[in-house]
């Protein structure tokens, strides 16, 4: 029995949340549906940890669905690269579920809670499947599962604010365009290689010269994934979706959704299209690098002028995605590792910040804007402390997780592109201090509204916030876990030759 469990871990991590979501939708009691979701996300996280240990000893696990051996059948691959987003998604999924216990009932009607949790599990399972699969078309299916579930989750915010419907519609249309682009690309690549297995595509591409179908297929796939990952000019859906989704959903999506797509981007660029190196390096230097720099500044500047805090954090997410794609675009081993380090750290940071903002909106019972924050730091010291630590981590101050990712990013930028790029990175992080300080200043130095004095913080809400803040500090002090696994990932992705 244990054997069966251990042998099937790569498929269980996808199917357990998928199957449980079917049960959770049917449960009418909202408390029971919460418990089931919590248990499922916990089991998923445990499976992820077991897989992490297996990857450390076997380095790559391949699982053939239905015993149809790859390249014919669908293959699930867990290796040093894909384990990072798997751990992020399942871990943050668990923490966000823990946090959602009181938050969901305060924002949604009782009848829709179990449906929301069902979609929640579906989104988690879709994201994990996206990362696990080694088949180009299966990847598209999971792309659709995760994004349709997230669209429905965003639309659940309509009870609070009808804008959520517009946000969900935008997300649906733009996301569908992205997915269509991806599938057109897969079609073209399938036409020239005759295979859908990602590893097999690489070996077939190695035998042929660059041709137009390959270039077009590559372009369609990359652009499609860039839409899903919200890389700068294709990010339009993101701020609204994060801002008007139910708060718990914002936490989950902000911390996990774009990470999975960024992983796919890295995998397409560095491992699938490895043989057609000149196309990839052209894309990296002339397209992704400039766009990332624009994202860093554009996102930060939009965040500075934003009054609504959830939108502000969403804009700052765009800038942070810019850092990650920037790290990928430099294209050396250390920079790709820096990208993966920032991927996991950013999940912790944004998860923490969204949790803090959500707790504030739970206590004051209205939308959090800059004016509403006034003086609340005194009324809720624990939330405020966590908020400050996560903010410092976002800005990249020493002793926090954000520092480690900025450190490795700047180090790799100096060693390959010279000083100007690292200056840009430092300058945009300095700019991010402006919007962070704007929030901290109002939270701490402005006078407190009279009716907010009575606020008492509840342990149910701040416990998971404390946990994620602790992780922010812990990975700032001892980053070896994240750094080592990220370097393992980039070694595997880029091979030995670079």
């Amino acid at each position, binding site marked *: 029995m244990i054997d*069966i469990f251990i*042998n*099937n871990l790569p*498929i269980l991590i996808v*199917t357990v949340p*998928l*199957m449980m979501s*079917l*049960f959770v*939708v*049917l449960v009418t009691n909202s408390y029971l549906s919460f418990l089931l979701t919590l248990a499922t996300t916990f089991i998923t996280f445990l499976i992820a940890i077991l897989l992490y240990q297996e990857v450390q000893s076997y380095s790559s696990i391949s*699982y*053939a*669905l*239905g*015993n149809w051996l790859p390249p014919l059948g669908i293959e699930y691959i867990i290796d040093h690269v894909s384990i990072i987003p798997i751990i992020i998604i399942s871990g943050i999924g668990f923490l966000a579920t823990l946090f959602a216990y009181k938050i969901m009932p305060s924002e949604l009607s009782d009848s829709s809670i179990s449906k929301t949790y069902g979609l929640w599990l579906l989104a988690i399972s879709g994201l994990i499947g996206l990362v696990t699969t080694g088949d180009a078309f299966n990847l598209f299916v999971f792309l659709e599962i995760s994004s349709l579930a997230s669209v429905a989750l965003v639309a659940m915010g*309509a*009870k609070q604010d*009808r804008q959520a419907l517009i946000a969900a519609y935008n997300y649906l249309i733009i996301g569908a365009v992205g997915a269509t682009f991806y599938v057109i690309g897969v079609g073209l690549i399938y036409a020239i290689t005759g295979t859908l297995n990602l590893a097999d595509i690489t070996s077939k591409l190695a035998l042929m010269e660059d041709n137009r179908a390959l270039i077009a297929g590559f372009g369609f796939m990359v652009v499609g994934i860039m839409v899903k990952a919200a890389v700068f000019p294709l990010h339009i859906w993101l701020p609204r979706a994060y801002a008007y989704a139910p708060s718990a959903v914002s936490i989950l999506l902000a911390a996990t959704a774009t990470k999975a797509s960024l992983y796919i981007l890295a995998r397409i660029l560095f491992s699938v299209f490895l043989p057609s190196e000149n196309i990839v390096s052209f894309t990296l230097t002339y397209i992704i690098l400039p766009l990332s720099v624009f994202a860093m500044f554009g996102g930060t500047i939009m965040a500075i002028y934003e009054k609504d805090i959830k939108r502000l954090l969403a804009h700052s997410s765009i800038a942070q995605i810019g850092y990650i794609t920037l790290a990928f675009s430099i294209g050396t081993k250390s920079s790709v590792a820096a990208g993966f380090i920032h991927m996991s750290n950013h999940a912790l940071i944004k998860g923490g910040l969204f949790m803090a903002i959500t707790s504030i909106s739970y206590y004051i019972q209205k939308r959090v804007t800059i004016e509403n924050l006034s003086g609340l730091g005194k009324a809720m010291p624990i939330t405020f402390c966590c908020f400050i630590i996560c903010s410092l981590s976002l800005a990249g101050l020493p002793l926090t997780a954000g520092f480690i990712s900025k450190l490795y990013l700047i180090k790799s930028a100096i060693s390959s592109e010279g000083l100007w790029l690292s200056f840009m990175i430092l300058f945009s992080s300095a700019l991010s201090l402006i919007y962070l300080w704007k929030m901290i200043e109002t939270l701490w130095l402005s006078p407190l509204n009279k009716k907010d004095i009575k606020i008492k913080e509840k342990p149910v809400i701040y416990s998971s916030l404390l946990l994620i803040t602790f992780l922010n500090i812990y990975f700032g002090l001892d980053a070896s876990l994240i750094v080592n696994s990220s370097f393992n990932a980039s070694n595997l992705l880029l091979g030995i030759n670079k």
Partner: protein
Amino acid sequence: MYKNPILRVCTKILFAPIILFGLYVQFHGDYGPGGGFQAGVIVASAFILYSIVFGLNEGQKLLPPKVNLVLLAFGAFLYGAVGFITMLMGEPFLSYNVLGENYQAGQHLGILIIEFGVGLTVCNVMIALFNSFSGYQPNQGS
């Protein structure tokens, strides 16, 4: 439209043959064109036709929304359950070979059950989509 006797009688006559044709497409899927997706849509069209002619309330009496939701989840569950059963029998997820006495019987049984699950889910999703669009009242809101 409710009052038109031709429509009402025709719907009643057509209802059973449409479902029969749906079942034919469903279970013929292993040998010819067809399968769960197409069959699900055909069966759903019978229920949707009934709702269009007799009104949404009558349609929901025929298939209550709660039953609709349960069947929707059950179809997908059936698909996954086949995967879990093969897993418990010591083979990878969805390897049908172990389900029957020999290779062919196992493959046949496995594909039949999961296609039935697909058909059930597709059919109920179509009906649920129709119900939620036609039951939408713009001014009440949520």
